[in-house]
Each structure stands twice: as structure tokens, then as C-alpha cells.
């Protein structure tokens, strides 16, 4: 059977183009430089404690600290993104920290951070009234700045759900909390690193 060369060449190019497209879609050409930090500079170390956060039962309210999965996968050193703090612990990459976390679950300061995180979540959860007739799948993020005594100094919406009523309800919840009365019990070093600036994700699903 005779095969015309034009056809061969054409189909070869077609194959090439298709392969390139597929590879591109499979992120073959993806390079780390393109990554932007998940959040702004205040990606503090406390964000690792994502697995601590409660997934909701039947009650709709669930407040969870956003995950850093993206960051972890790409193994980025986020040193430059962190606001300058005094400790040296941050020089360890996120991957290592996760490993430590998984390997040494009973490490005491981690335990404490988890405990405090869940107390924060509980307080905000109980103050949150989810608005009615809101569609599923809405999520918004608020950043809080909390002073040493636990008083919430500022709240800002850093990621809108697209629905103003939903965003407002999250803001209301935080405003209603006003201050976390257990903050005096937090040791100074933990406060500065983890609990001065926190980001809360409101995700009812």
C-alpha cells in the first residue's frame, strides 16, 4: 500500500500539536515560578494546622483555617512571604513541618496550638448565623488582627463569596465575638507567630 508522504507529514504534525496540547493541560510545562502565594504575606506557620479544623456535622456552620495544600505540593520555601518574626523555626520548609506534625503528633506546642485554634473556631462558629436562602458552595475568607488580650482589632474581607449577604454574615459573626477571652493563656511566643493574624474561612459545606 502506498502511503503519500504529505499525509504522513500532516498527521505527524497533527500528532505533535495534539500531544503538546495534552501535555500543557496536564501541567507538564508548569513551572514553579508561576505560583503566587495562596494568601498575602501573612501566611504564617499556624496555617499548617488545617487537619485540626472541624468538618461540620449536621450544623451548617464550619469555620476552618484554609489549607496550604497547594503550597505544600510545590515545595516552596515561603520564607520571603512571612512577616519578619523573631524565631528561627520558620526556616524549616512546610513539608518538613508537616512531616514532623504527622510523625510527632503529641508534640506539646503543636498540641497547644491545635487546642487554641479549635477554641477560636468554636467561638466564631457559635456566633455565626448563616443567612437563609443562600446557595450551596459559598465560601468567604476574613483576615483578623487580634491583640495580645484577644481583642479583635480589625476584620477585613479578603475573599468574597460573591454574595454580599453571606459575606456580611461572616463579618457579623466576628464582630459579635469581639474578643477571645482565652488569649491571655497563650504563651507569648505562640501568640506572635500564630495568633496575631489569623485567616478564617467560612465554608458551610
Amino acid at each position, binding site marked *: 500500500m502506498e502511503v503519500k508522504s504529505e499525509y504522513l507529514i500532516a498527521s505527524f504534525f497533527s500528532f505533535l500539536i495534539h500531544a503538546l496540547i495534552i501535555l500543557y493541560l496536564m501541567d507538564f510545562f508548569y513551572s514553579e515560578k508561576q505560583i503566587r502565594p495562596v494568601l498575602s504575606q501573612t501566611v504564617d506557620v499556624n496555617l499548617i494546622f488545617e487537619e485540626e479544623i472541624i468538618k461540620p456535622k449536621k450544623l451548617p456552620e464550619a469555620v476552618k483555617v484554609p489549607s496550604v495544600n497547594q503550597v505544600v505540593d510545590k515545595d516552596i520555601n515561603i520564607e520571603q512571604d512571612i512577616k519578619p518574626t523573631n524565631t528561627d523555626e520558620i526556616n524549616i520548609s512546610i513539608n518538613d513541618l508537616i512531616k514532623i506534625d504527622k510523625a510527632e503528633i503529641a508534640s506539646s506546642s503543636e498540641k497547644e496550638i491545635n487546642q487554641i485554634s479549635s477554641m477560636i473556631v468554636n467561638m466564631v462558629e457559635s456566633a455565626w*448565623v448563616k*443567612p*437563609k*436562602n443562600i*446557595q*450551596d*458552595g459559598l465560601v468567604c475568607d476574613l483576615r483578623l488582627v487580634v491583640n495580645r488580650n484577644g481583642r479583635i482589632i480589625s476584620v477585613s474581607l479578603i475573599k468574597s463569596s*460573591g454574595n*454580599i*449577604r453571606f*459575606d*456580611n*454574615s461572616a463579618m*457579623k459573626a466576628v*464582630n459579635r465575638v*469581639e474578643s477571645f477571652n482565652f488569649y491571655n493563656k497563650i504563651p507569648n511566643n505562640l501568640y506572635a507567630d500564630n495568633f496575631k493574624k489569623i485567616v478564617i474561612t467560612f465554608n458551610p459545606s
Partner: protein
Amino acid sequence: MKKILVIFLLPQLIFAELVLEITQGSDDPYVIALLDFDGDEIIAKQITEIVNNDLNRTGEFKIISKEKLLSSPKSEEEINFNDFKLLNIDYIVIGALDSEDQFNLSVSYQIFSVLNENKIRTSKVLGIPNKIKQLAHYISDGIYEEVTGLKGVASTKILYVSEQEENNKSLYQLVVADADGANEQILLKSYEPIISPAWSPDSKEIAYVSFETGIARVYIQNISSGKRRVAIQNTKQISSPAWSPNGNFLSLTMYQDGNAEIYILNLKNNNLTRLTNHYSIDTESSWSPDGSSIMFTSGRSGSPQLYEIKLSRFNSKPKRITFEGNYNAKGSYLKNGDGIIFVHRSNNDFKIALKYFNENFIRPLTESKLDESPSISPNGNVIIYAVTENGESLLSGLTLSGARFRLPAKKGEVREPAWSGFLR
């Protein structure tokens, strides 16, 4: 002398009409202390009352009454924020009538955040002495916007049809009123039925179906001049007008081949384009907020259901969008295009329902048996509709946040409400 007389009479008229019944509030309202406006007592009282009712009707506010307040500051300097924190109040509103003569009335107000102990808004509204209501509505909307971030609808209007007995005949009237049902003005009087009123996007014109010539015809009428014209001359009936969001097109239902089909009329050059071509009923067209799709009611699957057709692709096939129940009709889009409200029949009851496009279930919003003609406010938060109770029809409202209210009972029956756009 004359001025004082007018002021005395006005409140009587106004207070007699306004009987607003708020039957349910929402769960998590903003708590507001609304202090009496400073100035002429009668006007100030009116304004406070109207603002109070407007904010209550949104379902998102709880107004703490004067008696419960620990102090009544008249200006910023006099505010003791602790007095308000104790009562869990979120915001304080202090207002005053600035100037007032025969032709001008100006009111200014300030809003304070109790949490942050600071002033968050200073506003001034200029109006006319005998249009105090509208001025008060502007104030309500200003407060609503500052606190919730959404545009308020207290200063918008509603359009509806009223039917009453007169000389043993039925008198039909097309009425426009304020969003709280007050200040009714008649746009059209007729002894033949009027249905399907619709606002133009700029709220300056209306379209409606009138049977005055013996068959259903669509008229377009300019509100302020009263000038009107037939949308399109035709021997056969036409109905169900709906304006496109840019005001250039009017979708209509025509019966040229004996069957209800949807057509689009280009208002600029009078070109008529046919949209549907199916042997079943296709009617009740409604445009998406971005003007790219039209939703309509069609019987093509055997019972009335809602379909959507994309206008960008020529001859695109209508896509069915309601699947629950055997009667889904008169759909209209939510203002941000992420869902629809419509009339839904379940267990022989006709209710108003809401469906988000990213969900596959219907959310019933009302509870009575014969609800129809839902119309959504321009800020997308409030739905007004007609209820039939004890054989009478009246207008009822509900907010997405869960509050409910009734508009004052009128003479005769009222139905087919349509909500205007923003007028501020």
C-alpha cells in the same frame, strides 16, 4: 398660615393609608438605634416613622425603640457609646432637618458604628416639603446601603393591577405606588381586563396587556406624559411583554398561527423576530440580567415548565431548566443571574419558589395555596407577589433573609405586581 395648615393635613392623610404589617423578621438583624430627627416635630416624626417601617420591611434590621435607649444624644458629641454597647446595638442614626422653607426641605443624618465608636457616614438629602415620604425613603436607603453594602429599595416603586366593582361593572386600574404600598397613583383606567404590567429598564415607561379593544393587545405607556402606543399593530392578540435589559427590545407572545409563540420586537426599527416554533404553548418570556438569554414557560414536555434559550447562537435549542413538579411558570431571573424565581405547583398548591442554577433542587419560599406573579426587587433581595386568601387577592412580600410583610389592603383586589428599577 397656609404652610401650617398644609402640614397639619398631610400627616392625617399619610397616616391613614399606611398600615404595614410585618409578620416575620429574619434571624440575625443589624440592631439600630434610630433617634428622633431634630427639627419640626411633625415632619420629624413622619420621617422617623417611615424610615422605621422601611428598615423593618427589609427584614435585616431591628430598630430599638426610643424608650429602651439609655440616652438620646442629639449630636455626635453627646454620644456615649457604652450606653449603646450595653444594649447590643450595632449602629446609631442621628438626623436633623436642616432648612425648611416653602420650596425646600433638607435633612441630614449621620450613622455611627458602636463597635468602632466612630462615624461612618454623613449624608444630606434635599427634597420638597410636600414630598416628605420620598425624602424619608432616600434616608432609609442610605442607611441600608451603609450598613449592608447593598442598594436599598425603599425609594423604588411597584406597579400592579387593581379590580373593583363599579356600577355593576368591573373597573380595572393600573396603579403605581411606593414600595411600601403608599402614594398610589393611577396610570390607566379601563372596564376591560389589564394584565402583565412590566417596567422598562429605566423605569420611565411601562408595557402592559389591555383588553380594551376586545382582544389582548400590548401597549407601551410613558409614565409621566401618559402617552401611549400599541407596541405593534396586529389583527390577532399579543400579550406577555418583557423588556430587554438595555431597553432596545421587547419580547412578546403572539398567536399568529393560532398557538402562543415568543417573538422579539426591536423597538428602534420595529423588526419582529420569531424565537420559538413549537406546537405547544410558549409564553411568559423574561430576559436574563445580561441580556444574553430568555427564559420562558413552555408546555412542550406535556406540562408548563421553564426553558431557557441563548440569544447569541442563532436557532439554539431551548434548554429545560425546571424538572420538579408538573407546573413551573412565570420565571424571572435573580439580579445577579445565578438563579430564578417562579411559580411552582406542588400538591395542588401554587407557591413561589427559588432555584439556583448550581443546585438541582427547588426551594419553596411561600406557604399559601394560590400565590402568583412574583416580582423581584432591583437589589435582588425582596420578592413581591400576589396572594389569594378567602377569595381576595392582595400583595405580600418576602425577603430572601426570611422576613415577610403584607402591603396594606386596598379597595377591591390587587394582583400582578411588578417592581421598578432603582430610581435614585
